[in-house]
């Protein structure tokens, strides 16, 4: 009987995700994957063999009880599944969409050893969407007030996670956000077609309903320093400000008009909704020949945005090969389906502009892979005499970010490492300033949403201990 059941389960293949047709979707900003139906979700959830010692949980930076929620989906209790998720993850609809599951929970799924792992991310998305769409989102009871005021700086993934965790423990939580909308990279960086902003709003709304106060337009380090926050009665501070500052290559012509950092290009399109100009007032260059420099997820988001803004030719310019690309395979796949042209082993060395100072051409070198570098990836080296030009009218530089120094500079005693990121003393993110923790990109440099959330989770526990023991 038991054997029979197992065999049956193995026969069901991993359920594919229905998606918008590539030819259609490059004309709109709507979400690309359409989500599982209830039937598909149950079918997929039933593939899980409910391991006695599940590896998937430890593959999750926020320790979601994966078999627990998957079981509830399999049983058709979708609301129950969503609530199970929210016990440890305040933003499941976000994580189900943007987590690199293939490197985390799904990587260690036992089914993946011989075949395809359970589609944990798709199920997470399904359960969270089901709950939200059904209007059955309930707000769990929070612990009685502790009277402890805690300040969170930055309303991105790390800040929202820690805010949700700490408010549930009864603390008085205020999140300070520099932009006019909370969400951090979820709202300014990740495009609508990958993460609809209505979903981010709903998840932020949930955190607020838990009792978290969010103050927008508050650039900490300018309007208030960390010391002033302590002066106002906050007993602990968490810094989750992200790795805000864009990196450029510092090559000739890089300041020509039409050349953007990915941060600017995506902020204009996502946060400011420049794709809907002139209904929205913020403009953006709608280039016909757009080159995006870089091979990460941000580069893929930028190049796919360029297509949707009407580019005839949208290029990824990357100095190594596809194997070394840091972007998720799924993102590269989506970009290719949509007609993005990959110019690999190619590195820009100069931009040439017209009489108005607008970029018109990009001079590149062809590269080849040499010996491995410090990161273990083979170092790209210039092929001598290989210079060539590409006609471009818009360029997006997506080669990573650096630490934004405003808070570090205005907070005495807050030490940074040699790259300007905030130095932490332990895995909870405790900084060199008493009562101040930090987590997410401002500690690690550019990483993922879920790792920032994991950092928020770890700091939450430490801050809870700290404020409860204060004065004892």
């Amino acid at each position, binding site marked *: 009987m038991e054997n029979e059941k197992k065999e049956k389960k193995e026969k069901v293949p991993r359920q594919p995700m229905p998606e918008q047709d590539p030819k259609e979707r490059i004309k709109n900003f709507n979400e690309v994957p359409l989500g599982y139906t209830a039937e598909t979700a149950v079918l997929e959830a039933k593939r899980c063999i409910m391991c006695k010692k599940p590896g998937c949980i430890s593959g999750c930076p926020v320790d979601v009880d994966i078999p627990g929620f998957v079981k509830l989906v399999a049983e058709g209790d979708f609301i129950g599944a969503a609530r199970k998720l929210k016990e440890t993850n305040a933003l499941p609809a976000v994580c189900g969409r943007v987590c690199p599951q293939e490197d985390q929970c799904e990587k260690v799924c036992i089914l993946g050893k011989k075949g395809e792992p359970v589609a944990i991310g798709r199920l997470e998305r399904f359960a969270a969407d089901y709950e939200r769409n059904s209007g059955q989102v309930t707000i769990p009871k929070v612990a009685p007030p502790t009277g402890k005021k805690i300040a969170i700086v930055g309303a991105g993934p790390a800040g929202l996670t820690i805010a949700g965790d700490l408010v549930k423990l009864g603390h008085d939580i205020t999140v300070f956000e520099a932009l006019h909308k909370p969400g951090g990279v979820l709202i300014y960086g990740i495009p609508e077609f990958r993460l609809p902003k209505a979903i981010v709003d709903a998840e932020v709304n949930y955190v607020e309903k838990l009792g978290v106060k969010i103050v927008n337009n508050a650039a900490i380090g300018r*309007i208030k320093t960390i010391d002033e926050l302590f002066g106002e009665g906050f007993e602990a501070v968490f810094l989750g400000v992200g790795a805000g500052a*864009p990196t450029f290559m510092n090559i000739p012509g890089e300041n020509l008009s039409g050349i953007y950092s990915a941060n600017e290009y995506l902020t204009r399109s996502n946060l400011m909704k420049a794709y809907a*100009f002139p209904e929205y007032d913020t403009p953006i260059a709608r280039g016909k020949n757009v080159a995006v420099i870089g091979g990460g997820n941000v580069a893929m988001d930028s190049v796919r945005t360029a297509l949707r803004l009407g580019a005839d030719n949208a290029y990824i310019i990357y100095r190594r090969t596809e194997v070394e690309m840091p972007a998720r395979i799924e993102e590269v796949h989506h970009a290719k389906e949509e007609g993005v042209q990959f110019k690999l082993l190619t590195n820009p060395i100069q931009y040439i502009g017209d009489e108005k*100072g607008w970029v018109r051409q990009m001079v590149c070198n062809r590269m080849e892979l040499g010996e491995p570098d410090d990161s273990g990836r083979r170092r790209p080296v210039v092929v001598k005499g290989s210079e060539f030009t590409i006609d471009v009218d818009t360029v997006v530089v997506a080669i990573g970010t650096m630490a934004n*120094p405003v808070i570090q500079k205005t907070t005495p005693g807050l030490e940074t490492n040699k790259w300007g990121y905030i130095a932490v003393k332990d895995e909870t993110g405790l900084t060199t300033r008493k009562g101040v923790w930090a987590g997410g990109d401002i500690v690690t440099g550019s990483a993922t949403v879920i790792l920032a959330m994991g950092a928020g989770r770890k700091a939450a526990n430490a801050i809870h201990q700290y404020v409860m023991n204060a004065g004892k």
Partner: protein
Amino acid sequence: MHKVVEKKYISDIVVKMVVEAPDIARKRKAGQFVILMIDEKGERIPLTIVDSDPGKGTITIIFQVVGKTTDWLSKLNPGDFIKHVVGPLGHATEIEKIGTGVCVGGGVGIGVVYPIAAALKKAGNEVISIIGARTKEILILEEEMKKASDQLLVATDDGSYGFHGFVSTVLQNLIDSGKKIDRVFAIGPVPMMRVICNVTRPYNIKTIVSLNPIMVDGTGMCGACRVSVGGETRFTCVDGPEFDGHQVDFGLLMSRLQMYCDQEKHAMNLCRCGHGK
């Protein structure tokens, strides 16, 4: 939400507005700016804080109507609201005892140089101000500048008031008269700032300019406001807005300012035809 408490046209095209922003009013220093967004569909624009009243919790901004957003802003009345105001952003002007400071303001830039003149005077410096406009009707803040300065010189391009010519010529004449000048602050249209820097360069007079590139977030995140200073790329929002004028690549600033000219005209036309806000 920030309530508009006062609005006044100080010339045909320049508006002075007093806005509720108590935290910013307490914290701001001369030279700093805010970014504001009129409503959720608006764009984020940087404006220098001209003055503040910490007691009343208000800040003063002065702007010229140049495009859709400033046009829309100019149509707000006392009692109306601006959805978002963030600040104070950027570094404050370095105000120290320098001796004699010359504050040059052109057009709406007079509004930006005014708090600097006032702060310099308060710090015990001799302040000579040179302000100019295309014509008399659009010259702003003459009385305020007079109060903030030991000596005020006025120029108009058309000769309708004061010296007939540019502020740069007035400055050149001042230098030629043998007046010892320790520092110049020049704020106004890009061509004016460029010419002022050309005037002071041969005499090695340190010249500070306040730059006004296009910005989005204003907190160092996007790089829209990058300028070239001494051959290095700097972000105006977090490294500025004031820089050593002798090092600034004004040509680059000028071309980057015109990046969205066509789109701005389009938005403005829609707006004028009544399709916009």
